[in-house]
């Protein structure tokens, strides 16, 4: 079974909000639209977004780090938002695990948004239905666009490639390898929602060089001479014998 998802690399995200704007641009005119903005140039601007980038300061200045944290629907594998929906408007697709809202069935009771621990759903005050990230379901299967571009808009927009996209159930996909090898984790694991989206942690890239590694002080492997051969009844592996 396929489970499409995003993997977001917090080590790489620079907090430029390119994913936020490209998400809004694509989706406001797509099948998930429109995503109205109210008072955009006035006091109290507000609007519907599927994706937001937040910023956290970790540690205390001057020993602090800035973590930019993009947040959207995590397409949970056990989504608490789906069973509570009284109309069946919220559903999880069998074929690819995307969690969607059917705008024609939604009655706007907001119950699902209460049942999402991540606050990933937003109620649209104009269409009066619940909205959320669709993983650009109207784009990733569109055969009219070149295959390389059949990815969520946010993934395509990210200038630092902090957003990876793929099938987390395929052990050899780019996303599964990233999760496995770079310590990918899920948000709020305590609620058993099993989010499909994963985050890659901040990493320190360090190489340790000792003084004596810079200067060749001796000839540890004695490359220039013949290597002595021990008695035949002794072990012969280089690292267990010492000559």
């Amino acid at each position, binding site marked *: 079974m396929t489970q499409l998802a995003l993997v977001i690399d*917090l080590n790489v995200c620079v907090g430029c*909000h390119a994913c*936020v704007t490209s998400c809004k641009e694509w989706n406001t005119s797509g099948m998930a639209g429109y995503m109205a903005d109210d*008072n955009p140039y006035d006091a*109290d*601007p*507000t*609007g*519907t*977004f599927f994706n*937001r*980038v*937040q*910023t*956290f*300061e*970790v*540690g*205390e200045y001057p020993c602090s780090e*800035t*973590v930019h*944290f993009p*947040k959207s629907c995590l397409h949970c594998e056990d989504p*608490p938002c*789906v*069973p*509570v*929906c*009284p*109309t*069946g*408007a919220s559903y999880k697709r069998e074929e690819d695990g995307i969690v969607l809202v059917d705008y024609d*069935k*939604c*009655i*706007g*009771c*907001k*119950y699902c*948004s*209460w*049942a*999402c*621990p*991540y*606050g990933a*759903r*937003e*109620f649209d005050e104009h*269409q*009066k*239905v619940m909205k959320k990230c669709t993983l650009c379901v109207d784009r990733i299967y569109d055969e009219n666009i070149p295959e390389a571009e059949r990815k969520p808009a946010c993934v395509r927009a990210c200038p630092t490639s902090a957003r990876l996209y793929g099938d987390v159930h395929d052990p050899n996909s780019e996303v599964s390898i990233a999760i496995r090898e770079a310590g990918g*984790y*899920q*948000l*709020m*694991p305590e*609620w058993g929602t099993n989010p499909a989206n994963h*985050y890659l*942690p901040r990493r320190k890239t360090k190489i340790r060089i000792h003084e004596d590694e810079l200067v060749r002080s001796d000839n540890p492997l004695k490359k220039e001479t013949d290597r002595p051969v021990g008695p035949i009844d002794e072990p012969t592996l280089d690292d267990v014998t010492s000559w």
Partner: protein
Amino acid sequence: MHPAFSVIFLTTLIGAGQGLFLALYTSESYAAVKLLPVQSGAFYAWGSAISVVLLALGLITSFFHLGHPERAWRTATKWRTSWLSREVIVLPAVLGAIAVYGAIHALGWNLTIVGIDTGVSNDLTLIVGAGGVLLTFTLFLCTGMIYACIKFLQEWSTWLTPVNYLLLGTASGFALATVYASLFAPELVYFLGGWAIIILLAAFVTRSASLIRNARLKPKSSLQTAIGVRHQTMTQRSQGQMGGSYNTREYFHGAPMWVFRSIKWVFLVLVFPLPLILLSVGINEASFTVLSAAFVIQYLGLLAERWFFFAQANHPQNIYYQTIS
């Protein structure tokens, strides 16, 4: 959470309506075993009518909560998984059962079905009423479970939630029944008022228990688990927007802290001690004025109680919305 007035009115109105019906049925079944004087059909019929009106008012206010009320019929489809859907099915069923119960009384259908000799001449109403009672309890369960089933809303996620809905609704309904009886069946005032007080005391125990439980709750989620960074000192520097969003409106009660704190005491006083005193005085004098004051004050208190119930629930998504920028 942000308390929505439509839901506050829905839950308090149907609670009183259901409680009133339970009170009527209790008095009728006591009469059946000759523990209480039998009342006229009109007494039960008009009582059921009041109960139906309360439930219908609740149903109507609930529509104000919906973005698309014209699609409300769809809510009946997912009863297998959703408590909200179950409530939407059971509420009209309760309404119907109470209406039928009242109608049989009003029409005076003297049908004997089981045929046991009871103090009440027809047992059709007892049978229909029993079905209604079962549905009424189911409705209380559904209403409570809508909130109790969301496990990360830790303030709600306890068996005390449905129990409180049951006891508070029943207490208010019995108080209303006492008011009603003081006008049309004074000999029932002692009985109904006594039960109103007993249920009120039970509700006080369970509601206080949930307040104490909530005061001691340790939130399971923290900023550490929310963003997955294990560091003790973290501060939010921006939440991705400068103005508000659905996330900042729907999940915060938005009232100043002193209002939030005082509402708790307001409801504790209005729901429990004041009606208790008024009920005790009222049943001794069978005074309509005192008893209705008890019911009205308690109803206002229940509105405050429901507001507090919503406002107190702290949604884990709020962790992501602590600082604007």
